């Protein structure tokens, strides 16, 4: 596949209270960003099992973006801390699996940060484009 026309497939796991609400705000503010991220909404980012992430990579996701609340803002007290720890561990594991750890990104985006949401989607899509498809030329 030509790297230039490569349109990555990205899964976005977003918590309901912060990042998904930020996505709502980005929409309400009519921000524009690339269409590559398909959002899946959770109550809390701590519901995301590393297996779900691996499942996404296994089924062809070129990138996985996790969005939660900032530390101290978690609606469920400390779910985001659990997420942070799980993602840190998974990052180590990804290298062993031959997946560039840049393909998994964790971002804290609050409900007020529609602008940041837009920026993160843009940046992450660009980065994955640079990395190329997960299958084929350059995992």
């Amino acid at each position: 596949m030509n790297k230039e026309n490569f349109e990555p497939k990205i899964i976005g796991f977003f918590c309901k209270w912060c990042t998904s609400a930020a996505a709502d705000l980005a929409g309400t503010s009519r921000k524009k960003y690339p269409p590559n991220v398909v959002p899946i909404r959770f109550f809390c980012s701590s519901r995301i099992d590393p297996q779900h992430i691996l499942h996404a990579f296994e089924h062809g996701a070129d990138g996985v973006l996790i969005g939660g609340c900032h530390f101290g803002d978690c609606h469920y007290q400390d779910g985001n801390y659990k997420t942070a720890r799980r993602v840190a561990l998974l990052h180590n594991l990804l290298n062993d699996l031959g997946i560039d750890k840049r393909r998994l990104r964790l971002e804290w985006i609050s409900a007020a940060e529609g602008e940041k949401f837009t920026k993160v989607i843009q940046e992450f899509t660009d980065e994955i484009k640079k990395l190329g498809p997960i299958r084929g030329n350059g995992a």
Partner: protein
Amino acid sequence: MKNIGVFICHCGINIAKTVDVEALTEEIKKYPGVAHAENYKYMCSDPGQNIITEAIKKHKLDAIVVSACSPTLHENTFRNTTARGGLNRYVCEMANIREHCSWVHDEKDIATKKAAKIIKSIIEKVKYDEPLDPILVNVTKRSLVVGGGIAGIQAALDIANAGVETILVEKSPSIGGHMIQLSETFPTLDCSQCIMTPKMVEVAQHDKITLLTYSEVEEIAGSVGNFHVKIRQKSPYIDWEKCNGCGECDQVCPVTTNDEFECNLSDRKAIYRPFPQAVPNRYTISKKGHPPCRIACPAGVNAQGYIALIRAGKYKEALALEREANPFASVCGRVCNHPCESDCVRGEVDQPVAIASLKRFAVENGSYEFEQKKPTGEKIAVIGSGPGGLSCAYFLAKQNYQVTVYEAEKIVGGMLVLGIPEFRLPRDSIKQDIDFIKSFGVQIKTGVKVGEHVSLSELQKEYRAVFLATGAYEEMKLNVEGENLEGVLHCIDFLKKVNLSEKVSLGKNVVVIGGGNAAVDAARVAKREGSNVTILYRRSRREMPANSWEVDEAIEEGIKIEFLVAPTKAIGKDKIEKVECIRMELGEPDSSGRRRPIPVKGSEFTVPVDNMILAISQRPKTDWLSSEFERTKWGTLVVDADTLETTVKGVYAGGDLVSGPATIIEAVAAGQKAAETIDAKIRGIKLERKEYATGRPDPEELKSIQKRQRAQMPTLDVSKRKGYDEVELGFDKESAAKEADRCLNCAICCECQQCEEVCEPDAIAHDMNDKILEYDVGALVVATGFDIYEPERLKEYGYGTIPDVVTSLQFERLLSASGPTAGDVKRPSDGTVPKRVVFIQCAGSRDKENHLEYCSKICCMYTAKHALLYKHRVHEGEPIIFYIDVRTAGKGYEEFYNRVTDEGTTYIRGKVSKVYQDNGKIVVMGADTLSGKQVEVEADMVVLAMGIVPTRGSEEFVRRLKIQCDANEWLTEAHPKLRPVESNTAGIFLAGAAQGPKDIPEVVSQASGAASKAIAILTQKEITFEPTIAGVNEDLCSGCSICVGVCPYNARELDKEEMVVKVTESLCQGCGSCSSACPSGAAQQRNLIDIQIEKMVTSALEEK
């Protein structure tokens, strides 16, 4: 397989403009599981909703996907629609193709493609959605309001007036908070106390309010509708059921401490009511356990107590208190080794309080006539009339036991009279204590030697219990050559002869061997008998066990002490002529912790002597006791450490007989202990010895204490110390009062019992314990309030070093008619009226670099009020305010500010850089930013308009509540605009300044808002919870309990019998962190199970 209906909304053109809804509908129709798909202009409209309900019937749909806007907006709408169509509301899901798609993309084919992916992933989710029922929970119709300031008072009254039972918890003894400390309130200048006290009284009298002051919430569990709280009601040490607030106790209490209510501008008593209008109108005792001196005393003598009484001039009461725990007040006032003084906290500041000498002072000045009592109870025998035996007799006789003391010698007092020379302990002073003991009806038989004149077994038969306190009189040997030569004397034997006025004849040169008190006593006696005396001690002064002050006095009297010298041989024909000695050096510490002396080879030398007195040590003589009595290897008796009972039942032992040679106060303690156990045994009760916390001033408090010289004990001039006249002469009243005033009142309340004497309702309860109260409540209002920022942190403004730099709250008290100056503005330093007062605004606030970043909001207005009230009190006074900005947003505030400036207050715009003292004047240095000049203003007084912070210590409580705080520890509201009185935990509401700086009107309205939110919950019978919580598949659960640790709400618990985890549904909030932590897949969040997530992912990734 489910029949799924998909309904795609155009949202006018909001979706349809960038998403090809027709093409999308056609594509979705073909997706597996979709039984029906259609689109409509406005799905949320009535016709749109009808499309859904009709389609459910027509196409026999089992599940619904509405592709429209964000579920935040319309999930509830479409779930209701689904329910109206006859399906369970939880089989309806929304696909957000507006905010997440049509609004953020421009190209139609791209947006349409993404919308299809979003919808398909939601179709996958809904395939596995199960019908769920909302969780219904009963509501406990009771509320808890935490904090008794104006916010808590208002919230509690509002809730109670709605007919709901309310518990108001306040940590201090009275409600009222900071508002009751204020003089008048801006901008209307209402008297704070006048408008607040009626509300406080209403709280106390409201039949729906349970008021718990001096209480704190300790634990909280549960969730909205059903919280369970544990409240610690601190002990006020006064039975509030009985206390009538009369205040008699306050008059007699001899202990003063800082008055927190008056911001430390004045003192209050240890027994106190925070302010006259306190609600409840009850007294409280400030008590921090027992003081270190009392804890250090083996007999637990209440030193802080009698010192306080001496300070108050109540010498008789002081003596009575001394004798409560120790009948030998007169003896111990002179010769106690006073471990109390070693632990005296005053010693950390300068020198310990002269506790023992004060004790003697009370004996000499507070002696009183005692009536002769005749006990009638059981008979007890005590053997030995030393301090141990007589103490035991005293404590038992006080309990009405008939005690007979058997003494082998002809005189009473044991080692007190036989071992201690008169110049240290006059015989009259011993008699004073013995007479006191005898007054309780203690019989003493002298000259009766048990084992000779009467057998122990006879006594055992005659008496219910026997206490052995025969001391340690057998002298140890030095084990050197020539020890038996004439002229070698044994110390106790020697002292005994002198004390019994038997003849002793000493030669010119005397050496005393040993370093204990007996050695020093023997040396001083020998000196008085006219000899040249040298003490030889094998270690250094540091290791010397004798009391250091005794050693000092001995040296003063001309006694030489040779350290690091030990005798090796006594040389002489029949009579001693010389002592051969060897020099020692100190090695490693031995079992006693002192460094072991090691002989220096070849350093032997001889000293010509006429007498050598051996004061090595003594051991008890126990040959008159049968072998049934177990002994230790040191020849002392074995007793039970708790009861002091020997290995023979009914026979107890204490004092030197058990401990080996020890102190008087230790013997008293043993006598006391034995008396307690004997009494408990006879009465058949279990003896409980209460442990007390050690009370002492806070380290900060210690730092601020001024050093003061310890009173010197007047002594007999050295030239007059020839005979046996007492050397220490005792304090006079003046020096005793001064010395007593050095006491730091470590435990605050000294338990002197004066309040008990005057309390008519008999309400004082010094041994009262904290109570734990438990309640179920449906909702909470948190109104924990604020504190002022620590002024000590503003070093540049001189608070704490310049006495007339005060905080705004202190100035409120100076303005208040009920304050320490009765409303006259006076300087704390000299009580004069300040002619010019400088107010510094933003003290601690709006200073991101050094202090608080935020604006404390109320300071501009209260400073304006301060200036005005000062001007009202002091007409010729000159108020000057330094400010950064004057913020007067509020009804009537700007008008008030205008009035203040009109009435003659100068405002200088600029920040103060420094406040210092120069020639008795305070100088305020700052910038006038309007004129661009540096200004220096002389002032008589400076008031710091302190910023405010959340109440110190409340963060611990907030952590227990599991609600959020911001970076400054202010409580976080659920939404800054739309939900300002709710926390983000359902059922917990916020009121007052705990949420952020605010003035009184704002606080009151927010409190009413919080109350109405609480009432909305509390007046419902039951409330519903979302059922999308996490359950447990018990077939898969291994009981590993990982999920239990992960759950932030304690909703999961291991059932140890079934070894599976059980869930309390009402506690689970549905975060799902357990589901991702569960290794076996047993924990699954309802309608968001693993397979749903995986299918959603897979479908979103499918290429078409």
